[in-house]
C-alpha cells in the first residue's frame, strides 16, 4: 500500500481552501494549506507534497514568482488556479513549468481529473506499449493507430502530434510546447500548423469531428487530449 498522496494548496482565500480540503479529503488525499507565497514555499520544502495547487493571485508575491521558485528545486506537479480573463497568465505559467491549469469556477470532478492526470505523469512512465482512449488505440511499439479496430493512416507529423498528446493525456499542452516538440524551436509562431493538423487528426479519429471529444481545443492556450 503506497502512502496517501499529499497535496499542498497555496491560496489566500480561506473559502477556497476549505472547499478544496473537503473535496480532496473526500477523495483520500491528505491536504496541507498555505495562505501566502512565502508560507507556501516553506511548506513545500518541509512537506514535499505530491502535488501543489497554486493560485496565481496571491497577496505577498505573484503566483509566477512562487512557480519559478518551486521549479528551481522540485519537479512536483503544479496545477494553476486562475480566472478566465488571464489567458496570457495561464500560458506563461504553463510555459514556466506548471503542469496544468484550472479556470475558476471549476467543478470538483474536473479538479480531481486534473489531479489524477498530473500525478500519473509525475510517476515514472511504465513501459506501456499500447495506449487506449475510447475507441482509439495507439500502439507505440508498432507505430500503429486504430479506431474501432480499423487501422488509421497517419502522416509522420500527425503521428508525432498524436503521440505527444497521448503521452500527456489529460493535460493541457500550450501551442508553443506542441510546436517545439513536434516541429522544432524555429516553428514557435506557426500556430496555423496546429489548426490544420488538429483538424486532420479529428477527421481521422473523432466520431464527430466538428464536436470533438478526444482532441479538445483550449481557447487561447493550447490543446488537451481528453481522458474520461
Amino acid at each position, binding site marked *: 500500500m503506497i502512502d496517501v498522496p499529499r497535496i499542498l494548496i497555496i491560496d489566500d482565500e480561506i473559502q477556497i481552501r476549505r472547499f478544496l480540503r473537503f473535496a480532496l479529503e473526500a477523495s483520500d488525499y491528505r491536504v496541507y494549506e498555505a495562505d501566502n507565497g512565502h508560507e507556501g514555499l516553506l511548506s513545500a520544502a518541509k512537506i514535499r507534497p505530491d502535488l501543489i495547487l497554486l493560485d496565481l493571485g496571491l497577496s505577498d508575491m505573484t503566483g509566477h514568482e512562487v512557480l519559478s521558485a518551486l521549479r528551481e528545486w522540485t519537479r512536483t506537479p503544479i496545477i494553476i488556479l486562475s480566472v478566465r480573463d488571464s489567458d496570457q497568465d495561464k500560458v506563461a505559467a504553463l510555459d514556466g513549468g506548471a503542469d496544468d491549469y484550472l479556470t475558476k469556477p471549476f467543478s470538483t470532478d474536473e479538479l480531481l481529473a486534473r489531479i489524477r492526470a498530473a500525478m500519473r505523469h509525475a510517476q515514472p512512465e511504465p513501459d506501456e506499449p499500447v495506449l487506449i482512449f475510447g475507441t482509439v488505440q495507439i500502439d507505440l511499439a508498432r507505430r500503429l493507430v486504430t479506431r474501432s479496430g480499423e487501422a488509421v493512416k497517419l502522416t509522420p507529423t500527425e503521428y508525432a502530434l498524436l503521440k505527444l498528446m497521448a503521452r500527456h493525456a489529460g493535460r493541457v499542452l500550450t501551442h508553443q510546447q506542441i510546436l517545439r516538440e513536434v516541429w522544432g524551436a524555429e516553428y514557435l509562431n506557426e500556430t*496555423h500548423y496546429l489548426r490544420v493538423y488538429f483538424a486532420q487528426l479529428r477527421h481521422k479519429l473523432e466520431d464527430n469531428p466538428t464536436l470533438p471529444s478526444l482532441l479538445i481545443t483550449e481557447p*487561447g492556450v493550447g490543446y488537451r487530449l481528453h481522458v474520461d
Partner: protein
Amino acid sequence: MNDDHRPDPDALLAAIRRDESRSKRGRLKVFLGMAAGVGKTYAMLQAAHERKTEGVDVVVGYVETHKRAETEALLAGLEIVPRQTLDYRETTLEEMNLDAVLARQPALALVDELAHTNVPGTRHVKRYQDVVELLEAGIDVYTTVNVQHFESRADTVRQITGVAVQERLPDSVLDLADEVELIDLSPQDLRKRLAEGKVYTPDKADAAAQNFFRVGNLTALREMALRLTAERVDHQLQDYMQVKRISGPWRSAERLMVAVGPSPYAESLIRWTRRMAYNLEAPWLAAYIKTSAGLSPQAEKQLAANLTLARSLGGEVVTTAGDDITEALVHLARQRNVTQMVVGKTQHPWLRNLLRGGSPTERLVRAAGDIDVAVVSGDAADSRPQPARAVLPIPQRHSTWRQYALAVLVVAVVTILDLLALPWLGYVAVGLTELFAVLLVAVYIGRGPALLAAFVSALSWNFLFIEPRLTFEISRTQDIFLLMLYFLIALFAGNLTARLKQQEQQARYNSERSLALYHLAHDAARAVDMDDVVRVAAGQIGEAFDAEVGVWLAVGSGRLSRDPHPGSTLTLDDREYPVALWAFDHSRPTGRDTDTLPLSRGRFYPLRTTGATVGVLGIHLRQDDGLSFEQGLLLETFVAQIALAVERELLDQAAERAAMVAESERLYTTLLNSISHELRTPITALSGIANTLAAPDSALNDDARRGLASDMQDAAARLNRLVENLLDMSRLDSGRLEVKRDWCDPCDLLGSAAGRLKQRLNGRPLTIACAPYLPLVAVDFVLIEQALVNLIDNACAYTPTGAPIRLGARLEPGTLALSVEDDGPGIPSDELARIFGKFYRIAGTAAGGTGLGLSIVEGIVSAHGGTVAAENAPGAGARFTIRLPLTGTPPQAKESDL
C-alpha cells in the same frame, strides 16, 4: 418720439452697461485744456498728491514736464515707473512702459498727453489705447489733453488757427471719461505765462506768441473747450435723468447717414456728421456706395482711411453696391430708417448735370422725400489736390503697344481693300468703311487704339481718297464733318467698351468673391469636425488671399492654445504669438494695418461668437502690400463665417457631450436595475439553500439534497455568467479589448464553443454544419468563441428545453459566415434592430439575463471589422449570423509535412 415719461429702454440698458463696465474698469479722469501751458499737468500732479495723501497707490506712468520748474517740483515724492526706450530712425525715444505699469498694478496711474502718437514698435499706435488697456486692467488713470486734439474739432481748429492738427483723438475717448476737469485760463493770463517763460523757453515763446498763441486763437480754443465740457455735462445730466426716470426733454429718434466716397473731403463730412449726431444724441452711419467704376490704388487708400475714421468716431460703416449713387443712397437711407442724410457739395460739369436731370445733390434732395438732406461744403483736410475725375472714368488698364499696332493694321487692311474697291464705291462710301474700321477697333480693342485708328483713318482717307487725292487738302464741309465724326465715334465707342470691360471685371470680381464665400460657407457647413473647419478656413482663405492661415482656439476658460489647431498652415514664433494672444484677450483685430502692434508681420482676428471669443485667426500674406478696403471687407466676412462654423462645431460638441451624459445616465440606471436584479436572484437562492441545509432538524432525503445542490450550482453558474458578461462589457467599453489575431479553423471555433456549453445545453440536439474546405481565418479565437458562446447561450435561453440548435459555418463572397439558429418563437420583427443594444431585452421574455450578451457579441465582432445580424429564419426561429471579413491568405503548411 417718446410721448410718455418712461425712460427709453435702450438708453437705460446703455447706461447700465456703462455702469457695469465701469465698476470693473478703472476710472478715467481727463484734465482738459484749451492749449499748451494752461497748467493741465500741474493740476493733474496736484490732484495726484492729494490722492496720495489719502493713501491711494499712485504711480507716474508718463509725465512730460517740458522742463517747467513748478511742474518738475511737483513730481517729487511720486513713484515713477521707468520709461521704455526705443530706437527709431537712429534716435532713441522714450515711451511709457505699459507692461511695467500693468505689472506694477497701482490704483492710479498718471499718463500725460493723451493724444500722443507712440513710436512705431510699441504695442499701440496711440497713447489713448495704452490708457484704455490700463483702464481695462482696473487701474484708474489721470490724463491730460488739449481740446484741439479731438477729431471732431480738428477741422475747426485748422480753420481758426491755420495749423493742421497732427495728433488726433477719437471723441469717443472722452465718453470713456468718468470725470472731465476743465483747466481754464483766460487768454490774457496764458499769454502772460508765455511771456514769463513758464510755458516755453524764451526763444520758442516769442514765435509761439506770434503764431498759435494769438488772443483770437486762444479765445476761440477756449470757447471750444468750454463748449466740449458743457456738451458733456449736458449728456451726463441726460443720462442721469433717463436712468432716474426724471422727466426731461426726450430727444426724437434721429438717425444720421453720411455719404462717404474716396475723396479727402469726406473726412470733414464725417466729422461734421459725428458732431451733429453727438448733439442730437443720434446714431449715425457712414455709407459708401460702390459703383462699377474701379478706384485707383490711391483712392482705395483714401476710402479706407475715411471709413476707418468714421468707425473710430463711432459711426457704423455700411457699404452697398449700385451704379446710381443717388438711388442707392436713398434706398439705403429708407432701409435703415435714416432721418437725415449728409452729403458733400460736389462740383460737376453742367453739361453732365443737364444730361442726368440735375446735379447729384439736386436729384438726391428730390428723391429723398421726407428725409432731410444736409449739404455740407467739402473742405479737404490736406491741400493735396483731388485727382480730377474725368467726365467718363478713365479705364484702369492701359492698352498695350500690340493693341495700337493691331489698330493700325486694321486700318491699313481696310484702306488697301478700299483702294481696290474705290472705282465701284466712291470716296464717301470708302470714308464710311473706314469709319466702320474705327468703330471695330473701338469696340474690340480699346479707346486709345481707336483714337489712333481714327487719326490714321482720317489721314489716309483724306490723303488717298478725298479729291484732290494724294494731298491733305480738304474743302467740302461734309468731309470735314465726317472726319470729326471719326474722333467722336472713336471716343464714345472706346469709352463705352472701356466701361463695359470694367463692369465685366467688377462683375467677375464680385462673382469670384461670392463664389469664394459660397465655397467657404458650403465647405464649412459640411465640415464634420473642428479640424475640418480649420482646414477649410486655412484652405479657402489661403487660396483667396495667397496667404498662410492659422487658427488658435481657446482651451479651457479664456486661455488661448499655444499651438495652432491641426489643419493650420501658419505657426507663430514666440515673438509673434503675443500678438495673437492680444487679439484674443481683447477681442479686437490686432497686428498689421490695425492700431495695435501694427509692426507685426501678420494680422490677427478674434473669432467672435455670440457668447465669447472662441479663438483667433491669423494670416500672413505671402506678398504683403496691404489689403484694399474690398479685401479687408472680404477677409472680415470670411472670419465671421469661420467664427460661425467654429461656434457651430463647439455647440455640436457640447450637444454631443450632453447626449453622452444623458445616455450614460440611462445606461447607469438600467445597469443598476438590471444588475441588482440579476445579482439578487441567485444570491437569494444560494442563501436560502444554505439556510435549509444548515437547519438542525432538517429531514432532507438524498433526492432533496441533490436537488438543492443542483439549484446551488445553477445559481452559481448564473452569477458567473453575469460577472463574465460584465467583465467582457467593461473590457469592450474601456477600449482595452485587444484583438489577438491568429489563424483559426472555423469548425474548431464552433466545436469549441459548443463544447464549453455542454452543461448548459443539457442534452439538447446540437448540429454543426461546416462547409467543406473552409479556409483558416485570422481572428481572435478566444473572443470569437466567446461571441458564439453568447449566441448559443441566448438560443438556449429563448427556446424550450430540448429544442434543437443548429450551428453553421460557410463562405460568402469575401466573408466567413458563422450562424446560430434555433426553432424558438423568433424575434418580433420590430425589435430586430434593437436587440444588440446594451441592456436591451425583449419585453415579456423570461426572467434572467442582463441584456448584455448580444451587445458583447456586437462589440467583439465589430472589433474584428465584421457584422452580426439577427433575422427570423423561414420556417424556424431566430438566426444570428456573424460575418467576418476574410483578410489575407492563410499560410500553407509545408507539403513535406503532409
